[in-house]
């Protein structure tokens, strides 16, 4: 017990030290920060770019999550249902429908089978053919909604239906479900790729900005080295700056993007794909990691850049 307790205490104190360091980095060390001259213009550019990148990142994140949600909803709803369509001459319709229901009810794995009433079928056709449809005069096929349960042998069921109900066509929706789900998961992949590109561009942009700041301060760096500053001390002055700027810029960009998503008009009834863009519930916490990631990216990009520059100074 004491061993585990000791370990936990160790981990906690290590975490405390790390958090302390991170906080110290953010708060800054007034004295150390002053050794690098302030730069107005490039600082604003870094802020702006970090903000713009964070804005885009939040949208890419929302896109990925929304397509993921849509894909899983479609596959879940559609996977569990199928439709049996019976196209037969008018005089055989009723007989075949009754036979089909009999077959379905006696098949293990079919949770339920229900014939759609004339009214329901009229409703389904109304958007295309108008409301005053004389259903009884039209050779409208009989539709049976099948809800699949566990252990349904679809191939066996199709074979039985083919033998006993010649006019029946069993449609488990896979023909149009699969391409939709494929498209959705491809879209989600694209969202993640966009996020990756945004992170890489942020790193590249901060490397460039830090590189130009380091080059502009070459004399300052040389002077600091001559009076005994370590590389870490000099690098930290730059790293702290760019980390703070990236964090602040990204925080503003993230807030604006979240606001924009929250204000997107909703059209829940049609369940449209685009209007589903956004976060749900605890998902709203997810974009908050964007500023953190921007700060971490800035930290490492500036650090690498600073140490590269410092190696050229004695």
């Amino acid at each position, binding site marked *: 017990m004491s061993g585990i307790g000791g370990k936990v205490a160790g981990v906690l104190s290590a975490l405390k030290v790390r958090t302390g360091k991170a906080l110290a980095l953010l708060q800054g060390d007034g004295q150390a920060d002053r050794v690098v001259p302030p730069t107005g213009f490039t600082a604003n550019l870094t802020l702006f770019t970090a903000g713009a990148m964070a804005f885009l990142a939040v949208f890419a994140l929302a896109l990925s999550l929304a397509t993921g949600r849509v894909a899983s909803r479609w596959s879940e709803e559609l996977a569990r249902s199928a439709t049996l369509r019976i196209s037969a001459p008018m005089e055989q319709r009723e007989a075949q429908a009754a036979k089909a229901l009999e077959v379905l009810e006696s098949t293990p794995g079919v949770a339920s089978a229900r014939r759609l009433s004339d009214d329901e079928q009229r409703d389904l056709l109304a958007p295309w053919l108008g409301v005053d449809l004389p259903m009884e005069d039209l050779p409208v096929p009989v539709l049976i909604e099948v809800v699949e349960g566990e252990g349904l042998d679809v191939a066996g069921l199709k074979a039985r239906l083919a033998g006993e109900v010649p006019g029946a066509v069993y449609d488990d929706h896979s023909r149009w479900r699969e391409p939709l789900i494929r498209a959705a998961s491809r879209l989600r992949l694209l969202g993640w790729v966009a996020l990756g590109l945004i992170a890489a561009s942020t790193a590249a942009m901060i490397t460039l900005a830090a590189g130009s700041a380091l080059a502009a301060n070459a004399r300052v760096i040389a*002077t600091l080295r001559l*009076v*005994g500053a370590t590389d870490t001390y000099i690098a930290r002055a730059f790293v702290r700056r760019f980390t703070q700027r990236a964090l602040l810029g990204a925080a503003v960009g993230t807030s604006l993007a979240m606001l924009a998503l929250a204000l997107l008009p909703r059209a829940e009834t049609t369940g449209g794909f685009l209007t589903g863009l956004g976060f749900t519930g605890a998902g709203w916490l997810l974009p908050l990691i964007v500023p953190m990631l921007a700060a971490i990216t800035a930290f490492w990009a500036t650090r690498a850049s600073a140490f590269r520059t410092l190696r050229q100074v004695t």
Partner: protein
Amino acid sequence: MGRGWRVIELENVAYSYGGGELLSDISLRLAPGSFHFLTGPSGAGKTTFLKLCYLELAPTSGRVQLFDKPATGFSRNEVARARRRIGVVHQDCHFLDHLPLAENIALPLTVAGRNVAEEKGNIEELLRWVGLEKHTDALPPSLSGGERQRAALARAVVMSPDIVLADEPTGNVDWEMGQRLLQLLVELNKMGKTIVIATHDLNLIRTAKSKVAARVLRIAKRRLQLAGADL
């Protein structure tokens, strides 16, 4: 200061720039508390010699030892730490132009992580010592050449280093101020610091010799020689 060790030791040191050899076969041991002048014609390599001593340049061949440790294998952090024990007055004094003078003088303390606020009294005294107490808040570019040189000396000694290397510290100041700077260096030497002054001002050397047991090193024809006792 009867310590047996050498603060700076050069052994068969040579240095060449792209073209040819500037310094060759230089061997020298500087004992703690010694006072040396370094003379020689311009371009003979006085500044290069000092740069070898504070590790801005690495010798092309030979060995440099600082505080009894071979400096050739120093890591970058060891170089930084060694420089905190060496105060350097550069010929072209580099300052951080965006910081007021007092902060520039405190810079070695700042980068060493010392609490500058605690040393405020010392820094004020140091500024008075070099006659710059009225310029505490001035930015370095607004100072004259002489003032910059005095400020550079103040910055060089703020860490109370073991060694002070000064490259033409009196080059830009009038006779009186030159004497004052020299007096400061002599006082530091009496406190046990090792002093090396590169200069071609023979009057300065003569004055110093009346105050302190100074030895004169001369760089000529790429070699370092111990000059005669009289000048």
